[in-house]
């Protein structure tokens, strides 16, 4: 037992070489930041691209209900602008298409109890989040995830976020085909791809099997594909430029049918156009939706087609595409029908809302309702075992913050229900008005204005009590809550949506929610809701009752909620909303002046700077940071007596710095060392940009000489010399960068 000292040693070869190297590099970057050798902005974007996010109060300030208090964190460097090192943070874990096997579920459970608060939180984009995590623990968290085949790379920051897909893909009765392997191919092809590293903002992708169901909510994504079959051939109706946020956009149809083999190159080309033409300075206008809007879809298409025709060849997509036909799932058990099995109390209701009959005869998908997206470690571990036993290990997270177990034999549904009851996960009402979803809001998010989870929890409790007596039309509605206008709770796509804001009344700040009505969840988020006015947070449950009662009273035939809203009209609906808007004086009803689940006097003083937008860091900054990290690792290898590895790492550090410079002029420079050296020599050495007034080309010669071949003795002296040379080379590269930039600014 004493021999095992670190997770790195313990997990060893269970982590792929690529992931191991990435995580080692991040650990080195932590060390560099602690010693002040990386700028806080660069480190912030670096950790965000690993999913390590800031959390509320991490600026060291918190309003305790009486006054703003300083949280006296130890005097350590920041982990980003106004972000204290020791402040708890959130770790987002990307789960492509929500797919989880039992081993992964068990690792998530373990991480939640060892590093977090015993809770695995499912997000509205099929990720898992752990809260209250210390940044120092993240490398080990990454290693343990990596050993289970999960990477957190690009879970945050200005990158391709988790690629989502309909959780019923592959078993859905109405889909064109299973989009799962396409989502997987896109996720891993674009992960870390050089053409997705220079975005001004995040980039979200989703895949849907059907047009008319909600599926993957394609309309609200930067890039979305809806499965189509034309003349027996698979492809996608491809949409671009959708998004929610403060300014929601419905995605535009890019092409009615993109043959499957064109999907990955086209996604890459779109990424390149976004990187090149997308806004970088104004974060509020930097999503792809603004570029599509600015150019118009026709012009955007033209840019993408030109890019497709001219971009450097990258055949690596074939490796991902070729895997697609091999994708498949296996059930744990033969299909059995639910005939003659005695049904326990509560089962019928649960089955009515939580079971979906698969297109494969005799199988069902069971939705495991997770209130507010939360599962304990014990529940997650138990669910892993149930997934193994009943579902062949085929579990997925959903954008409605639940989990589904697929391939459950229908005849085993009662048994599964009994098992779920034992672990407190047999709640019915999945996908109904009771199943309210919410972003973290003021619980943990720096941008939260009102308690979205507090409100969602309250609505869930009240609606669950009434659920049995609710009209069928009301039961089928969806409520979604965001803590602010940024829409992480997807309120625009709900029948009834809310987002947090506040109003100043009589010198007090009062938590409110903006009421959004008539959004369409189906048809891939086919229409967005209309704002109706703000109502005090504590009066929202009454408003929900009033609205749903009125809908039942006035509904004509099979009229949907959206149709009813349209027929009645905004002005008329607003009258109902406005009935709940007045706020009596504090002395009459002080409860309205606090938020759900939080007894403190309400304030918006805890709002911090959001990290959703990440930091815009130039590719050059990233390149140099990478080179410095490699140089630092070379030093560690040297200290550990691994001279050959130290030599190699120092050489790679110089190559990375040289490549970073070359990319200033030639972005698509290939990775092979000889090409980098030749381009570096021609563009920077011969032009005397990489040139020292006293030492002339001395520093560049360090790289050229090492490129000719290593000193094969690999002693402490030879390795030490090269590590020193690498440091000098990187310093010289920084100077050359500055010189290059100033020359670029000087008019000819």
């Amino acid at each position, binding site marked *: *037992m004493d021999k095992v000292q670190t997770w790195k040693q313990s997990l060893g070869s269970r982590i792929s070489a690529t992931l191991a190297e990435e995580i080692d590099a991040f650990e080195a970057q932590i060390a560099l930041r602690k010693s002040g050798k990386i700028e806080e902005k660069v480190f912030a974007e670096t950790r965000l691209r690993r999913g390590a996010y800031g959390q509320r109060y991490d600026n060291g300030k918190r309003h305790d209900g009486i006054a703003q208090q300083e949280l006296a964190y130890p005097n350590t460097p920041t982990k980003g602008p106004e972000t204290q090192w020791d*402040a708890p943070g959130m770790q987002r874990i990307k789960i492509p298409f929500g797919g989880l096997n039992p081993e992964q579920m*068990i690792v998530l459970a373990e991480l939640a109890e060892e590093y977090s608060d015993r809770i695995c939180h499912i997000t509205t984009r099929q990720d898992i989040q752990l809260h209250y995590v210390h940044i120092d623990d993240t490398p080990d968290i990454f290693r343990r995830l990596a050993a289970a085949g999960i990477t957190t790379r690009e879970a945050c920051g200005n990158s391709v976020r988790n690629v989502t897909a309909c959780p019923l893909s592959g078993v859905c009765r109405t889909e064109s085909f299973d989009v799962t392997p396409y989502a997987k191919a896109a996720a891993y092809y674009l992960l870390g791809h050089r053409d997705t590293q220079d975005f001004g903002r995040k980039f979200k992708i989703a895949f849907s099997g059907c047009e008319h169901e909600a599926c993957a909510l394609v309309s609200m994504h930067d890039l979305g594909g809806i499965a189509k079959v034309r003349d027996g051939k698979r492809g996608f109706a491809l949409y671009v430029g959708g998004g929610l946020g403060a300014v929601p956009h419905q995605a535009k149809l890019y092409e009615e049918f993109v043959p499957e083999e064109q999907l990955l190159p086209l996604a890459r080309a779109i990424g390149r156009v976004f990187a090149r033409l997308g806004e970088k300075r104004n974060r509020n206008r930097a999503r792809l939706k603004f570029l599509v809007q600015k150019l118009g879809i026709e012009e955007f298409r033209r840019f993408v087609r030109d890019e497709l025709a001219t971009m450097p060849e990258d055949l690596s997509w074939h490796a991902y595409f070729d895997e697609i036909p091999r994708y498949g799932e296996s059930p744990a058990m033969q299909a059995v029908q639910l005939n003659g099995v005695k049904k326990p109390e509560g089962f019928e209701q649960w089955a009515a809302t939580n079971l979906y009959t698969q297109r494969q005869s005799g199988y069902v998908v069971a939705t495991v309702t997770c*209130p507010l997206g939360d599962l304990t470690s014990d529940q997650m571990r138990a669910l892993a075992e149930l997934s193994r036993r009943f579902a062949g290990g085929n579990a997925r997270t959903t954008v409605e913050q639940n989990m589904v177990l697929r391939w459950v034999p229908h005849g085993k549904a009662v048994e599964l229900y009994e098992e779920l009851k034992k672990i407190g996960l047999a709640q019915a009402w999945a996908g109904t008005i009771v199943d309210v979803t919410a972003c973290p809001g003021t619980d*943990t998010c720096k941008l939260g204005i009102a308690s979205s989870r507090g409100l969602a929890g309250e609505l869930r409790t009240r609606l669950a009590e009434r659920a049995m007596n609710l009209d069928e039309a009301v039961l089928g509605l969806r409520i979604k809550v965001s803590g602010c206008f940024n829409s992480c709770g997807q309120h625009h796509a709900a029948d009834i949506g809310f987002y947090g804001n506040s109003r100043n009344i009589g010198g007090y700040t009062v938590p409110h929610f903006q009421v959004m009505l008539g959004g369409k969840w189906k048809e891939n988020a086919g229409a967005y809701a209309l704002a109706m006015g703000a109502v005090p947070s504590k009066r929202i449950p009454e408003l929900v009752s009033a609205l749903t009662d009125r809908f039942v009273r006035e509904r004509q035939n099979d009229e949907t909620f959206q149709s009813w809203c349209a027929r009645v009209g905004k002005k008329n609906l607003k009258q109902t909303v406005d009935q709940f808007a007045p706020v009596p004086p504090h002395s009459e009803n002080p409860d309205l002046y606090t938020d759900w689940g939080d007894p403190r006097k309400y304030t918006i003083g805890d709002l911090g700077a959001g990290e959703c937008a990440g930091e815009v860091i130039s590719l050059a900054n990233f390149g140099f940071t990478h080179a410095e990290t490699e140089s630092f690792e070379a030093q560690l290898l040297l200290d550990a007596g691994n001279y050959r590895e130290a030599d190699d790492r120092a050489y790679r550090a110089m190559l990375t710095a040289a490549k970073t410079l070359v990319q200033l002029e030639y972005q698509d420079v290939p990775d092979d060392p000889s090409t980098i050296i030749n381009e570096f020599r021609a563009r920077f050495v011969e032009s005397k940009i990489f040139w020292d007034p006293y030492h002339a080309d001395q520093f560049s010669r360090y790289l050229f000489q090492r490129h000719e071949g290593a000193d094969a003795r690999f002693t402490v002296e030879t390795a030490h010399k090269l590590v020193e040379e690498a440091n000098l080379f990187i310093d010289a590269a920084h100077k050359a960068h500055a010189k290059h930039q100033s020359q670029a600014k000087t008019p000819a």
Partner: protein
Amino acid sequence: MLTHKIAVKLFVENPEAVDRHAAVGVFHEWIQRHALPDHLLIDVADYGHVHHGPGTLLISLEANIYLEDGDGELGLSYVRKQPFSTGSDPLTDALQTARRIAAMLEDEPALIGLRFARNRIAIRLEDRLRAPNTDETFARIEPDLKRIGTEAMEAPVRLDRRGGPEQLLEVVIIRA
């Protein structure tokens, strides 16, 4: 000790008499008045909606403090995250801190009637790397557990090891 990541759970003797939700207000108020001077108190999280979950959580830099029923039994869990600065035995320090917090909770008017059992303490090692749930780990910590249990209860104790291999090593110290 093998790890500083020690969880101490003190069980509530009379859960039926406790308004669990009141702990939210109590913990917020503790933050206001810096009630635990040796902890940097940060925030409160309410997981009352989760079945057998973390309950109400007071987050500090040094430890997570839960009034929870994770194992189906209401109790105070003190989960140490950072090493103690005293340099003494972390198991003893964790237990003493947990008992101090339990006494504070018993004194809270909002939790009037709350009583912690004096005859049982659960210890969990929240560190699979340094303290895996094995017989070897158990054998190594057994004398320490008996020692702190005997000291705390002023009586002989017996140990009840809980949980399967996938779970963290957890031992309930019971007054014999």
